[in-house]
């Protein structure tokens, strides 16, 4: 294992010198397992909600480290604080106490505008409700994150088309969300999450509104992103079966991490062709 790691490192370094290689979708290196670099670090993170006079702690000092290129599931029953944890990781909310490092930057001290910038550039969101903008077409939905980053129009259109083709929706680019099935909408959302080529994909119950087959299909896409595009994926779910796709599962209960284990299905589902690609 140790031997493999060092091989990886070398290949990563080599590729980084040519960031614009043949990859249409990602400028990041292909599957790097540089396990030493933490892309996300939660250090003693507390989130306390004020409900009238009562203080309700949703997170009680959790510590999570996520490596670059890792696929982590945060699992727990409802009320366990998993959504809160994900909002923290996604820079959507700031902790009451503690620090969150995203790519070595402490987001707990950032302004709203900086957080928005970080979200737009480094994080791609996939939601249970798909959360597409209903007035816009699939293509425009995928383009929207790039609009917020002020990318030129030609680049946006081109990239959005590539991404939609990647999720097998190349023939649906001008359809509005209401004209698409749930699975198709979630794939548009996946394409949108990749728009600005973020390092981290955050998926909140990505299969929660889908039937089993479609859900598995979506999970396979996520695996592919993790495997081929070397995206770091953080997924929140209460569904054990879905969680098993992840490399690592952190189980959250009452705002604390109670267990950390390896996902059973990860190697089978996500690393099918890993050997070949890792050279």
């Amino acid at each position, binding site marked *: 294992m140790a031997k493999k790691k060092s091989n990886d490192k070398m290949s990563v370094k080599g590729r980084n010198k040519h960031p614009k290689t043949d990859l249409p979708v990602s400028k990041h290196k292909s599957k790097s397992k540089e396990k030493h670099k933490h892309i996300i670090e939660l250090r003693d993170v507390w989130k306390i909600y004020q409900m009238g006079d009562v203080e309700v702690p949703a997170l009680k000092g959790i510590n999570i480290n996520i490596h670059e290129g890792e696929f982590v599931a945060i699992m727990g029953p409802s009320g366990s604080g998993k959504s809160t944890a994900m909002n923290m990781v996604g820079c959507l909310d700031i902790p009451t106490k503690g620090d969150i490092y995203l790519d070595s930057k402490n987001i707990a001290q950032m302004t709203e505008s900086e957080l928005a910038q970080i979200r737009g550039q480094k994080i791609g969101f996939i939601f249970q409700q798909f959360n597409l*903008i209903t007035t816009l077409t699939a293509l425009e939905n995928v383009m929207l*994150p790039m609009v*917020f980053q002020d990318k030129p129009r030609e680049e946006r259109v081109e990239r959005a088309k590539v991404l939609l083709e990647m999720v097998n929706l190349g023939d649906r680019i001008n359809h509005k969300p209401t004209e698409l099935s749930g699975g198709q909408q979630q794939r548009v959302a996946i394409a949108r999450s990749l728009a600005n080529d973020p390092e981290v994909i955050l998926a909140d119950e990505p299969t929660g509104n889908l039937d089993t087959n479609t859900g598995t299909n979506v999970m396979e896409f996520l695996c592919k992103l993790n495997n081929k595009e070397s995206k770091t994926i953080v997924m929140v779910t209460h569904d054990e079966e879905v969680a098993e796709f992840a490399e690592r599962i952190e189980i959250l209960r009452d705002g604390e991490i109670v267990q950390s284990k390896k996902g059973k299905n990860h190697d089978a589902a996500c690393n099918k062709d890993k050997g070949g690609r890792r050279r």
Partner: protein
Amino acid sequence: MITDFLKLAFENLRKRGLRSWLTMIGIFIGIAAVVSLIGLGEGLRTAINAQFGFLGPDVLSVQASGVTYGPPGQGAVNPLSDEIVDEIRKVGGVEVAFNRYIATVKMEYNDVQIVTSAISVPEGDNRKVLERMMNVKSEEGRLLKDGDTRKIVLGNSFAEADNQFDRSVRVGDSILLNDIGYDVVGVMESKGSFLFDNAVLVNEPELLNSLRDDDGTTDIIAIKAKNINDIPAIKKDVEKLLRKERDVDEGEEDFIVESPQQTLESLNSTLFAVQLFVYIIATISLLVGGIGIMNTMYTAVVERTKEIGIMKSIGARNSTIFTIFLIESGFLGTVGGIIGITLGVSFAYGLAFIGKIALGSELIQAHVGLWLILGSLVFAFVLGTFFGVMPAYQASKLQPVESIRSAK
């Protein structure tokens, strides 16, 4: 980026269809009121100015009253005798006084017949006095001189290519007045007043001989004072004289002695008061319209809370959300403004057209200037954005987490 936001705003407004229209009604009624009433007011001001034959701070005019709107002195029940001018000349402080005659004549040119007013120009020294009072200058050819017979000077509008004859009248052309041929010797400079630009100047003897009955009456008596300060005293004395002459009691005068300039000023100030009133009404309407926009935008923020959360989570900054919503309200204002201007212009010109048909005169005129259109448009946009600021600010401050969770 802005074009994308514009498209987003447009899509959102389209989606809300009926509600967008209802919101805009407030704006476009206000703008339409402003545009049409200011437009008509400007036209009316021009028309009123045109009712006065001559101006000057040291000038008085005498007319028999009971006058309908039309050329001065016409249609009076008891016209002024043309001999009374000799008495007026004896009033202290009067420098010059002379009769003025106006005839309604049939005018024919290029096989087209119209009816217009022929105005007399006195002979001798009084000619210069009148020309100064009326501020008459020739643009083409010359003005009349003593002894000109069968010669006329035309108002400026006859020289325009799109006049009633469908052919511009030039100096040297011959034209028929009451079936008598006249030579055009000059064209006056445009005075911007309907009456003058459509008038025909004829020497007094010629007018009395050929175009008007010489029945011992006059239409207007023009008086010029030696000193401006004497005007009120002269006015009083002339009124006294006329009361005696016409055998009427004070307070029951069937004539008017007025200083045209003062009357014009007071009419203009009345008109201004009317316009001010209209401005106030329109302002209230626009204020209500603006509040309508604000209300709609607040509703939109509530409706699209989730959408705002989504956009924030995919990288929209507070300022981006603010801009998106502000564009949307500005758009509402501007589109409302465009519709309002269209309605207002059509209303003003429509009313002027109806007036022309119904009254047979061009008294009601519309004049919608470019500045009025541009000003209204800018104002509508500013109004929309102004009332959109608060809702847009509220939208921009929404927390992404709570917004996304809000039920759609």
